[in-house]
């Protein structure tokens, strides 16, 4: 018994010595020399040795990287390097792009002045590389509109969001109908006309023309509604009333599939309860 106890003590002492030596070694070890926040491994090496687990490795690293967004409030920018690293390992992993586009502009510019710029750069990269994810263009459009007051870019990115596979109805409805209000409709028409006239891309040209046509339909119905009021003293209850009274020959067909209505103030709008089953993503193809 005494022998066992003494052996145990010796083993414990040796274990303690090992731990102490490690602690001392760590104090004397020369730093490996990688700048803070940069990995010693390149994404290419990881992609070679991860046995095909690119997406899993990217997802695993992302779990650790997400909380680093908080560090940007302390002016530490490891988050951006790590997102770039993850995107290089699995360029199709869309969540890091979407999360960055949403959160980076929310950091106060006094602590992180490039938030919007970096968010848009990451978002553009995400649209080019990742899985189709409506959130990336949707958040980018919101950034363009709210932070940069760039309505033209906002329109373009809302359009991308509206035709991204998997976009939920609420987002598609908002994105497609962005800027249709009568107070901003003329500006929106001019912006879509400008996009149509300056792009060399036939697809974008056709989409822009569809938006212009649609916005003109709103103006057309507004004007017809005003004529109706003049003749009958009240606004029509629906666009069908305009046809019934022969003010217009037929209710125009929305190229994006929504149903036109006439609001109580006589302005044309869309029926929010009827979501088109066909999102009209084929326009321009």
């Amino acid at each position: 018994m005494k022998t066992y106890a003494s052996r145990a003590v010796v083993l414990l002492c040796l274990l303690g010595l090992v731990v102490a030596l490690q602690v001392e070694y760590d104090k004397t070890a020369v730093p490996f020399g990688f700048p803070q926040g940069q990995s010693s491994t390149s994404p290419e090496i990881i992609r070679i040795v991860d046995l095909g687990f690119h997406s899993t490795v990217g997802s695993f690293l992302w779990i650790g990287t997400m909380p680093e967004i908080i560090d940007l409030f302390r002016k530490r920018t490891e988050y951006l390097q790590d997102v770039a690293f993850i995107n290089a390992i699995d360029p199709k992993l869309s969540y890091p792009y979407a999360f960055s586009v949403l959160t980076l502009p929310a950091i106060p510019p006094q602590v992180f002045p490039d938030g919007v710029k970096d968010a848009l750069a990451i978002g553009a990269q995400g649209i080019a590389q990742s899985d189709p994810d409506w959130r990336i263009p949707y958040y980018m459009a919101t950034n363009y509109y709210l932070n940069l007051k760039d309505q033209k870019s906002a329109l373009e990115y809302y359009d991308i969001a509206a035709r991204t596979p998997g976009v939920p109805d609420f987002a598609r409805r908002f994105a497609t109908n962005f800027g249709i209000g009568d107070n901003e409709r003329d500006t929106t028409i001019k912006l879509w006309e400008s996009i149509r006239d300056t792009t060399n891309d036939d697809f974008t040209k056709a989409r822009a023309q569809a938006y212009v046509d649609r916005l003109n339909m709103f103006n057309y119905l507004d004007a017809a509604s005003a004529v109706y009021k003049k003749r009958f003293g009240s606004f029509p209850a629906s666009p069908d009333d305009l046809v019934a009274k022969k003010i217009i020959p037929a209710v125009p067909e929305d190229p994006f599939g929504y149903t036109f209505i006439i609001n109580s103030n006589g302005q044309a709008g869309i029926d929010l309860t009827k979501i088109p089953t066909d999102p009209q993503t084929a326009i321009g193809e």
Partner: protein
Amino acid sequence: MEIRDKILYAIVAFGIFYIVLTLFFSQLTLGELQMTKSFGLAGIYFFNAIIALFLGTTSFYKDVDRKVVYFLFSKPVTRAQFLLGKFFGLCLVLLVASAMLGLVYFGIVLYEHGGFDFVGLLAIFMQFLEMALFIAFAIFVSTFSSSLVSIVFTSAVFFIGHVVSALLTDAKAIGLGGIQYRLVQLIYYVVPNLEKFDIRDLAIHSVPMPLASFGLALAYAAAYITLLLGGAIWIFDRKEI
């Protein structure tokens, strides 16, 4: 015999536990489907690989070491039948393990996102093909070496099989030429190229797999498994036990 092995049950149980844990992982990223699929499919692959390595490298050796083969060969059973039976038996065990892990995975995807992951099913099937090839290789090596050597060989082929594509690409990129490049090409074409069975990333990102690639991968697996089992039978027939 293999299904009586308690280690097998432990691996499957741990695999199921891990796949259930993916619920937690996906919650860490606010319930992203990509994360659930990514960790789930990787878990099924990883635990199947452990099972394949464990069974493939030890099963044959155990039968020889425990003299089970003497009993078997006293019956009207040929050596070829024994090896083929071993291969298909191990594949069946692996299929059952894949099905169990897969059921948990599909249940989680259904619970989290309300849909069946059809591409995930294809990815699991491709993983199963890779593991079948892996088992065939382990049996082949076991016919002329010890269990330990078989583990080392099979693990090495598992690793090399996944890096050969990158090896060839890099050899081209750095301008390797002459005999060195030919050597890399030889490795690329001779060593089992396992990358073609990895469609997890396609499944996770919902990228369609060309039918031709699927058919060729299937044919590649069948051809290579036949080659390995043929070689194993040839060696085993000449072996004195």
